[in-house]
């Protein structure tokens, strides 16, 4: 098994798998590879701190082919990630992308063939600390499965067993497409609003129209999912809405943390693509439109080096 990336998602998941004895290699950039080789993968988590010394490979020496190749990169790094993992993908490899949104599937299918590409997503809360340590802060679930809903291939069954062995929540999902949409609907709403408002859920719902704006944005995302035939169930939707309108909530989309550090953002992947799908379906999505304009203005300002 090869994991591209050792950030909050790939790093946390892979470290737990490594500690459980699973044969995991990390494909990393030179700088991150040197750091992990020197310090190990340092995990700080409410579930217990630990450090592991995993196998690390770099571009040009990836080895393989691997049974499972996990992509745990950001959407804006997809192209370089594809080039990096390509030598590790053999005829029997399964690629499990853990990216947000849906737009990466078309790119991966085109490059590797749809048969090799499973669906996957992470619900892992965390970020990297200043010394490359993984600061895990809450949920630690992953979800993956066949995109056509068929019985899972052997590689996914084994990945599921490895996750259970490592105490990771989730695992094989019988309807991964729905799970991807459920996550995107939630993420599209919270990322749009936290970015455009520059505040936490609690800050937003404390304003005159904040809770209404949250509900409207969630509805815009739900309608896009419904048009794709993947409306979240009432129960899932009620759970998302309760989370997004909870007074005093300190929840915040990680995209806002990225913006406040002046970093790159998955604007197109999380918000822009949702808006484009709304447009293609003839759906009004006024709040997604405001949010995407906010993110594009941020990117323009970042590009000219004028962030405050």
């Amino acid at each position, binding site marked *: 098994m090869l994991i591209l990336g050792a950030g909050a998602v790939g790093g946390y998941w892979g470290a737990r798998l490594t500690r459980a004895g699973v044969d995991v290699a990390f494909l990393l950039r030179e700088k991150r590879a040197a750091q992990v080789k020197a310090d190990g993968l340092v995990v700080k988590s409410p579930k217990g701190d630990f450090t592991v010394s995993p196998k690390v490979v770099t571009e040009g020496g990836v080895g393989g082919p691997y049974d499972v190749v996990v992509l745990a990169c950001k959407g804006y790094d997809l192209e370089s990630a594809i080039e990096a993992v390509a030598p590790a993908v053999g005829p029997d490899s399964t690629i499990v992308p853990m990216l947000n949104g849906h737009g990466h599937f078309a790119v991966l299918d085109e490059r590797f063939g749809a048969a090799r590409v499973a669906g996957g997503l992470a619900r892992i809360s965390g970020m990297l600390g200043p010394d490359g340590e993984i600061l895990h802060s*809450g949920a630690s679930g992953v979800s993956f499965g066949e995109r056509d809903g068929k019985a899972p291939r052997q590689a996914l069954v084994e990945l599921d067993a490895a996750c259970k062995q490592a105490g990771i929540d989730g695992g094989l999902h019988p309807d991964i497409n729905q799970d991807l949409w459920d996550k995107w609907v939630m993420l599209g709403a919270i990322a749009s609003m936290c970015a455009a408002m520059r505040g936490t859920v609690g800050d937003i719902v*404390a304003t*005159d129209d904040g809770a209404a704006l949250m509900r409207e944005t969630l509805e815009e995302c739900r309608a896009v999912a419904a048009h794709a035939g993947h409306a979240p169930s009432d129960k899932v939707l009620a759970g998302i809405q309760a989370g997004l309108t909870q007074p005093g909530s*300190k929840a915040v989309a990680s995209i806002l943390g990225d913006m406040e550090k002046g970093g790159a953002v998955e604007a197109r992947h999380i918000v822009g693509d949702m808006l484009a799908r709304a447009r293609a379906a003839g759906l009004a999505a006024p709040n997604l439109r405001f949010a*995407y*304009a*906010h*993110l*594009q203005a941020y990117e*323009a300002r970042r590009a000219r080096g004028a962030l405050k």
Partner: protein
Amino acid sequence: MKILILGAGAIGGYVGGRLQQSGADVTFLVRPARQQALQRDGLVIKSKKGDAVLKVKSALGGNEGGPYDIVLLTCKAYDLDSALDAIAPAVGAGTTVVPLLNGMNHIDRLVARFGADKVVGGLARVGVALSPDGAVLHTSPFAAISFGERDGSAPRPALVALDAAVKKAGLDGGLHGNIVQDLWDKWIMLCTLAATCCLMRGTSGDILEADEGQAIVLEAVDECRKVAAAAGCDPGEKGMANVRSYLTQKGSRFAASMLHDLEKGGMVEADHVVGDMIARAKKAGVATPTLRIAYAHLQVYLARRARGGIGKPAM
């Protein structure tokens, strides 16, 4: 003619400084810290129209002097309550109060406090800021104040005299035949710029880089225009064309001063410039979706400012 200026900040300092330079009798009503700085350093103006260091008359609350013919109010809207208390002793039977604030909401409060006959309309169009050491930095090619009777009638002698002093001081503008329309024209521009620059956290040029940035800006102008029209003050096609072309210049590095204030972590005139426009829209039955989300953004900013930051990303 005796003029009292409340505040020696950016606008009050520049306008008052130029008036005094040309011989007008100007007194600045200031707080003790500002008075000490003025006595120590003088009123320092840095401007393409000429730098100046002026010895000025200043007064503290409780010792205002007067009565004055003109009281120029140049505070921010969120300081209006304390400003009203500060100037009250200086407002006599023959005094005219000329507020140079943004928006319109302050006029009702001034009228309630001092009576309609004492309060005229006024506004400033000056690109100025106060430097950390208290110097007035004038950056725009123009420096105008505009004022007039709110009912459009012939100006009282005090305003005619102020107009003469303004022209003598080399300031632009002066008496305006329809000051209420001018107030709306400025508010439409300002509200649109403040709402969109803050909502997008960028300059005009940054906003226009977004796919729908220009469309959003133009929608915001239209929202403001409809509110003005409902108040009987539609700026007309020509006025709107000017505003639109000003707000849609590709590559513009121009941003609302509210964005600068916000990025310094300062107080912002959110309620006065954007919130009050929305309140008037609601009364008139005008939909303002762009102003609404911009105001929510500003309210989030004020809430974060009040609690001093944001929690660590939690997901």
